[in-house]
């Protein structure tokens, strides 16, 4: 407990855009052989990347903390506390943003790292074991973490047997004990992937990927062509923990993944990324919005597949003669103006102006990596992997990209391997962006996934005030 609120808490996203530039990034990096259970596979790691331009180590990995076990597949992660602690109905502003909760998507362990006293050298202070999650909540394969006004929300892909339903469970924000399953009434929801909320409307949204059995062995072409992966957005009453509405975008659209609601709690729109359409391999972005008392969704961006020489394609795609964009991550700047879209297949990051959220306008693009193009970074030769996890600084001026998606899927789409890199993009205030030619972090044999910026970023915090 502190005397004044943690200085990294901001009442509104608007105020958070005035935050000072980040000097560190926390990045999880997997050991692909370990994740795939191959011989000689090592442990994943939490790394700290130096982002202080005044530092001699700028743009390099300052610290690597290996997990004590191999094969966790560290994926997404989050803070113990964030700006949601300032919310008026459960004010708890004197806790600190201090601990990183890092789930293993494959092992179902959650590691808790303390970033104090030395933010450059976090230390492992607790491990939440899979059986505690299974026993208290009935879930496994924890995925997304969000700090809410009243506790830590974590969702999971499935049950301990690897089937559905996936769902959300709550962690105590001080002891990190598993409190239990969140849903009181899940209605027709079965699949899980991402979740977030509109705090001003007491509304939670969740998306659909597949159960652990549907994804852990890699993307299953039979399930994909059978349209068995997720294609629905679920709307929940956050207060009563009840399912209230299904928004089905149609089963030709497979894998409805990242959810990016407006940061301003008085706004009622957000964006959902869909990986692939089985009709034409295109990817799409959908805008949801509130209409009276219910919610609606419509397709607002289509990103087509690009014809390609089958000889340059992995076996899985050779029959199609085209490379799919494979939109795997999105992020929305804190001013709710720019939406960034990762096309991991085609090796492109797209920037859209979403001032009118139902009429996005493409205003920027950079190319790096890609299944066919393998576009080089100014500091390297041709690169494997593509823009995947995308994180935006609070002031909206810098965007960080990492290259790896998920070990089993990396192998299918990049059979020669995915290089482990993190790059930085500089954003023009009015739109448009460019790769920083001097910034490229090499992760060696590991592959980086999610980035969390010191003090918060565009997907770490929720706000109760406009």
């Amino acid at each position: 407990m502190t005397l004044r609120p943690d200085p990294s808490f901001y009442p509104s996203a608007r105020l958070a855009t005035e935050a000072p530039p980040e000097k560190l990034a926390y990045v999880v990096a997997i050991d692909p052989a370990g994740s795939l259970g191959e011989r000689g596979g090592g442990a994943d790691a939490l790394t700290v990347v130096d982002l202080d331009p005044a530092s001699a180590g700028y743009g390099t990995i300052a610290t690597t903390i290996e997990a004590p076990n191999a094969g966790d597949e560290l994926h997404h992660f989050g803070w113990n506390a964030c700006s949601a602690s300032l919310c008026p109905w459960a004010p708890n502003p004197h806790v600190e943003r201090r601990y990183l909760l890092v789930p293993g998507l494959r092992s179902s362990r959650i590691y808790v790292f303390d970033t104090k006293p030395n933010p450059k050298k976090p230390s492992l202070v607790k491990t939440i074991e899979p059986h505690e999650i299974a026993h208290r909540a009935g879930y496994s394969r924890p995925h997304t973490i969000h700090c809410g006004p009243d506790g830590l929300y974590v969702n999971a892909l499935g049950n301990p047997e690897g089937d559905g339903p996936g769902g959300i469970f709550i962690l105590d924000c001080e002891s990190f004990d598993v409190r239990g399953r969140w849903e009181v009434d899940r209605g027709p929801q079965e699949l899980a992937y991402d979740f977030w909320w509109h705090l001003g409307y007491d509304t939670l949204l969740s998306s659909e990927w597949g159960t652990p059995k549907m994804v852990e062995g890699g993307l299953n072409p039979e399930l994909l062509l059978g349209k068995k992966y997720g294609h629905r957005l679920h709307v929940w009453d956050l207060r009563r923990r009840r399912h209230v509405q299904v928004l089905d975008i149609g089963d030709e659209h497979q894998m409805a993944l990242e959810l990016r609601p407006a940061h301003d709690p008085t706004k009622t729109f957000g964006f959902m990324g869909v990986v692939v359409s089985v009709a034409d391999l295109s990817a799409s972005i959908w805008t949801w919005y509130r209409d009276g008392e219910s919610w609606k969704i419509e397709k607002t961006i289509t990103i087509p597949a690009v014809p390609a020489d089958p000889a340059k394609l992995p076996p899985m795609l050779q029959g199609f003669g085209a490379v799919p964009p494979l939109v795997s991550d999105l992020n929305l700047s804190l001013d709710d103006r720019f939406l960034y879209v990762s096309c991991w297949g085609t090796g492109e990051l797209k920037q859209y102006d979403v001032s009118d959220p139902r009429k996005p306008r493409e205003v920027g693009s950079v190319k790096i990596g890609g299944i066919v193009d393998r576009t080089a970074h100014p500091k390297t030769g041709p690169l494997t992997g593509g823009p995947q996890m995308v994180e935006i600084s609070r002031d909206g001026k810098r965007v960080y990209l990492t290259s790896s998606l998920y070990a089993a899927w990396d192998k299918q789409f990049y059979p020669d391997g995915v290089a482990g890199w993190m790059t930085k993009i500089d954003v023009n205030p009015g739109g448009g962006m460019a790769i920083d030619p001097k910034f490229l972090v090499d992760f060696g044999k590991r592959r980086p996934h999610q980035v969390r910026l010191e003090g918060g970023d565009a997907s770490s915090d929720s706000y109760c005030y406009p």
Partner: protein
Amino acid sequence: MSWPWITLIALGAWHGVNPGMGWLFAVSRGLQERRGSAVVGALPPIALGHALAIALALVVVAVGRASVPLTALRWVTAAILIGFGLSRLFRHRHPRWVGMRVGFRDLTAWSFLMATAHGAGLMLAPLFVVDAARPSCHADAGVMLSGPLDYAAATVAHTAAMLAVAGLVALVVYHKLGLALLRRAWFNLDWLWALALVGAGVFAALAG
């Protein structure tokens, strides 16, 4: 005005200043609805909930007065206050409740729960169990609050002070100071609040 009444009103002002007792919620209602009248509209249910919490605590005190000797009640009150205050120094649990879209009933219930969970009513209890017949340093007025009229008047006076201060803070923050104030000036009142509870307990123990 005699000291118990001044104390009641001063404690009302103190409760009003605490963002966890309601003014912050009133500000957020105004921001969410984008109109200042929503700030004002949130204040009556917040005050009503607070008053209900105070009234409940005083009913418990009255039942205690009717059933156990005053000295015993005084020591029990002191022990509860000191224990609760100390526990709040070390534990900072807040009740989990509602959300952002709240009506009159929700806000009343939220305010009642927050005041009760933080021991707002309990903090006033010593004023009702101190035996005025035995002279003490404060006994110049010789008043001990007793009887239904005193209880009702005490609830109203305390709540009016709480409402006045909470309303003033909410309106000044909404119209003049703005949200950025929360980052600079939101001092951790939990410690002071816990110390106030302990202080009230010590007073109950010593002022007999």
